[in-house]
C-alpha cells in the first residue's frame, strides 16, 4: 500500500539535526535510533580471500574474529549502544545458507554482549542485488531473483534486526550516463527504471519483513550517487555533475519508503539527508571515519544530521594498534561521543556543533553544499511538490542546477571556469526534458541497446 509524501516531515532547519528524527525506530531490545543519540554503525569485510566450500571455515573464523574484536572494544570504551552492518559479499548471497549462517554467528555474539555488558545493539543485514549477474539484468524472475529473496528470508530468520539493500535497477544504463555526462539517460535510469524496480523490490522486501517481524530499513542509490562521487574524486567527471546526480537519486530512494521502509536508511546513501527531511525517518551516514572505504569531500558535513554514524567498510587487516575493524570502532565511538556530548548540553550546543560540521565543508565542494540542511530542505520541498518519480527526478535536476547557479552568485561556493561550462551544458540538457513521461520514454527508447537493458523487466 504505497504511501505518498507530499510535505516535509522536517520543516525548520533548526529541527534538522544529528541524533533526532521525527519518527525514531525502536528495536525489540529497546534501542531507539533517532531518539536523541547518534550511535556508531560498524561495518567490516573479509581480507583478500575467496569464498567457497573449502574456505568457509576460514570465512566463519574471520567474521567471528571481527565481531569479537569490535564488541570487545565497544565494551572497553563504555559505548552505550551501537549497530553492526553486515553487508554480504556476492558469494554469500549467491549461497543464501552461507549468508544466513554468518548472520546467526553475528546475532549470537551480539546477544552475548547484551547479557554480559548490558550494551544494546542492532544488526543490519544487507544482502546483495545479485540480479545483475545476468546480463541484461533479469530483475523479476530466474535463479538470481529467487536466491536473493531467499537470502532475505533466511537472514531475517537468522536474527537480523534490520534488512537493507543497495539495489541496482537502472544501473545497467546509468554507468554509461555518468561517464558520458548524459543527463537524459541518468534521469531515465533513476526516475523511470530505478524507481519502477524499487517499487517491485520493496513491496517484496517489506512483505518479507512483516512475515518475520524485522524492520525494513532502506535502499542506497550507491551505485549511482557514490559511483559518481568516486569518479569525480578521481577527476574523471566534474564535481558538479556528481552533485547533480546525488540530488536526482532522491526520488528513486524515496520509493522504498513509499512502499513501507521506515529507516534507519543505509550509511552510504547520502541522499538520506533528503530522505530524512521528507519522511522523518532516521538515517545512517558516513564521512571522515569512512575514508578507509572511500575518500570524499564531505567528511565533516555528513555529520550534520545522521542518527547512525558509519565507517562504510574496512577489511580485516592488522594495523599497528589492532585489527582495522577495531580501529574503526574506536574512531566511530569518539566521533559519536562528541555529538552526543553536545546534545547533552542542549539544543543550542548541538546546533553550534552541527554548524561547525557544515561550515567545515560546504563552501569547498558543491557535493558538500547540497548536504547543507537548509539546501536539502529547500530542494526536498521542490522535489515532492511533483507527483511522479519521473517528474520529481526532472525537478530535482532543474532545482539543483538553479541552486548551484544561485550559490555561485551568492559566493557560497566557488565553481571553476570548467565547472561553470558544465553547469551551462547540463542546464541545456535539463531544459529539454519533456513534461510527459510517455514522451520521454518514447524519446529514449531508440537510444537503448537491448543487449544492455531489458525494458520489459520494468513493465515498459
Amino acid at each position, binding site marked *: 500500500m504505497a504511501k505518498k509524501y507530499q510535505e516535509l516531515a522536517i520543516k525548520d532547519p533548526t529541527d534538522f539535526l544529528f541524533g533526532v528524527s521525527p519518527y525514531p525506530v525502536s528495536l525489540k531490545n529497546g534501542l531507539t535510533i533517532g531518539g536523541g543519540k547518534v550511535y556508531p554503525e560498524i561495518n567490516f569485510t573479509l*581480507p*583478500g580471500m575467496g569464498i567457497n566450500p573449502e574456505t568457509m571455515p576460514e570465512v566463519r573464523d574471520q567474521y567471528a574474529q571481527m565481531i569479537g574484536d569490535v564488541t570487545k572494544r565497544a565494551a572497553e570504551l563504555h559505548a552505550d549502544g551501537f549497530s553492526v552492518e553486515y553487508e554480504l559479499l556476492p558469494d554469500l548471497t549467491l549461497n543464501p545458507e552461507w549468508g544466513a549462517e554468518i548472520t546467526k554467528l553475528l546475532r549470537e555474539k551480539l546477544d552475548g554482549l547484551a547479557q554480559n555488558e548490558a550494551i544494546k545493539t542492532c544488526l543490519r543485514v544487507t544482502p546483495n542485488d545479485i540480479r545483475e549477474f545476468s546480463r541484461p539484468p533479469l530483475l523479476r524472475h530466474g535463479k538470481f531473483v529467487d536466491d536473493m529473496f531467499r537470502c532475505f528470508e533466511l537472514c531475517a530468520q537468522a536474527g537480523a534486526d534490520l534488512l537493507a539493500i543497495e539495489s541496482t535497477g537502472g544501473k545497467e544504463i546509468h554507468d554509461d550516463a555518468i561517464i558520458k555526462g548524459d543527463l537524459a539517460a541518468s534521469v531515465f535510469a533513476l526516475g523511470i527504471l530505478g524507481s519502477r524496480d524499487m517499487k517491485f523490490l520493496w513491496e517484496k522486501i517489506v512483505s518479507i519483513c512483516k512475515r518475520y517481524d524485522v524492520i525494513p530499513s532502506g535502499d542506497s542509490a550507491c551505485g549511482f550517487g557514490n559511483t559518481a562521487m568516486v569518479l569525480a574524486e578521481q577527476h574523471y567527471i566534474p564535481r558538479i555533475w556528481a552533485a547533480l546526480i546525488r540530488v536526482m537519486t532522491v526520488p528513486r530512494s524515496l520509493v522504498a519508503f513509499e512502499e513501507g521502509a521506515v529507516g534507519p536508511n543505509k550509511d552510504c546513501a547520502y541522499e538520506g539527508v533528503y530522505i530524512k527531511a521528507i519522511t522523518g525517518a532516521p538515517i545512517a551516514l558516513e564521512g571522515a571515519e569512512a575514508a578507509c572505504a572511500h575518500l570524499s569531500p564531505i567528511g565533516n558535513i555528513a555529520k550534520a544530521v545522521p542518527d547512525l554514524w558509519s565507517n562504510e567498510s574496512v577489511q580485516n587487516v592488522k594495523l599497528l594498534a589492532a585489527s582495522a575493524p577495531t580501529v574503526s570502532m574506536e574512531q566511530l565511538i569518539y566521533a559519536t561521543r562528541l555529538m552526543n556530548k553536545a546534545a547533552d548540553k542542549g539544543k543550542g550546543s548541538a546546533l553550534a556543533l552541527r554548524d561547525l560540521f557544515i561550515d567545515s565543508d560546504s563552501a569547498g565542494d558543491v557535493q558538500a553544499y547540497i548536504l547543507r540542511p537548509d539546501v536539502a530542505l529547500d530542494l526536498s520541498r521542490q522535489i515532492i511538490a511533483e507527483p511522479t518519480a519521473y517528474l520529481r527526478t526532472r525537478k530535482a535536476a532543474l532545482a539543483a542546477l538553479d541552486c548551484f547557479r544561485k550559490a555561485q552568485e551568492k559566493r557560497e561556493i566557488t565553481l571553476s571556469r570548467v565547472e561553470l561550462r558544465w553547469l551551462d551544458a547540463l542546464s541545456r540538457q535539463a531544459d529539454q526534458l519533456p513534461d510527459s513521461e510517455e514522451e520521454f520514454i518514447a524519446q529514449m527508447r531508440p537510444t537503448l541497446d537491448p543487449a544492455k537493458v531489458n525494458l520489459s523487466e520494468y513493465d515498459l
Partner: protein
Amino acid sequence: MNKNLAAIYQSVVEGESSQTAKKVQEALDEGINAEVILNEGMVSAMSEVGRLFEQGEYFVPEMLISARAMQEGLSVLKPALAKAEVRSTGKVVIGTVNGDLHDIGKNLVGMMLEGAAFEVIDLGTDVPPERFVEAIKTNGAQIVAISALLTTTMNNMKGVIQAICAAGLRKNVKIIVGGAPLSADFAQSIGADGYSADASKAVALAKSLIA
C-alpha cells in the same frame, strides 16, 4: 600547418564529429597524404585531448566525444589508408575477473588504452579464466588486463594467470592487473607483470611492457 589539417585537428579536440568527417574528405580531395592526415590532424589532436584531461580542462565525457570525432574521421580515411597499413600499438584483452561485476574502472582503462591506439578486446565482467585464454588465442593479444574490485575476487586473478600458463600462453603475453583493493605487492605475488593504480598510468605501463 595546412588549413584543412588545422581544421581537422581542431574539430577532433572540440569533438565536432561531422566537421571532422567533412574536413578529412576535403583534405583527401586536396591531395594530402592519408598518413599525414591521420598523424598530424587526428593523432596529434588526441594527444592534445589527453593533455587537456591531465590538466583538468577536460573530463572523460569530453574525451569520449573527441574519440568519436576521431572515429568518424577515420571511417572517411580508411579506404585511403588501406594500403598504408596502420599498425596499432598493440592488442589488449581486458576483463573483470569472475565473481566481480564492477566495470567502470576497467572501462576507463580500456578507453584510455584505445586513446593510445591500442586495439582493445573487452570481455566484460564476471569473466571466467577460460574466456581470457580463448580471447588471447583468437586475437593474438600481447597484453592481458585484468580488473578486480572485491577482496573476495582479487584472488581469482591468480586462477586466470594459472589458466594462461596451463594453456602454454604465458610467454606470449604480458599480464597487467588493477582495481582498488590491489597493490603492486599483490600483483607481484600472483605473478602478474605489472600493476597500476589508475588508468593513465595503465597506459604508460602497457606501453613500457611491450616496448
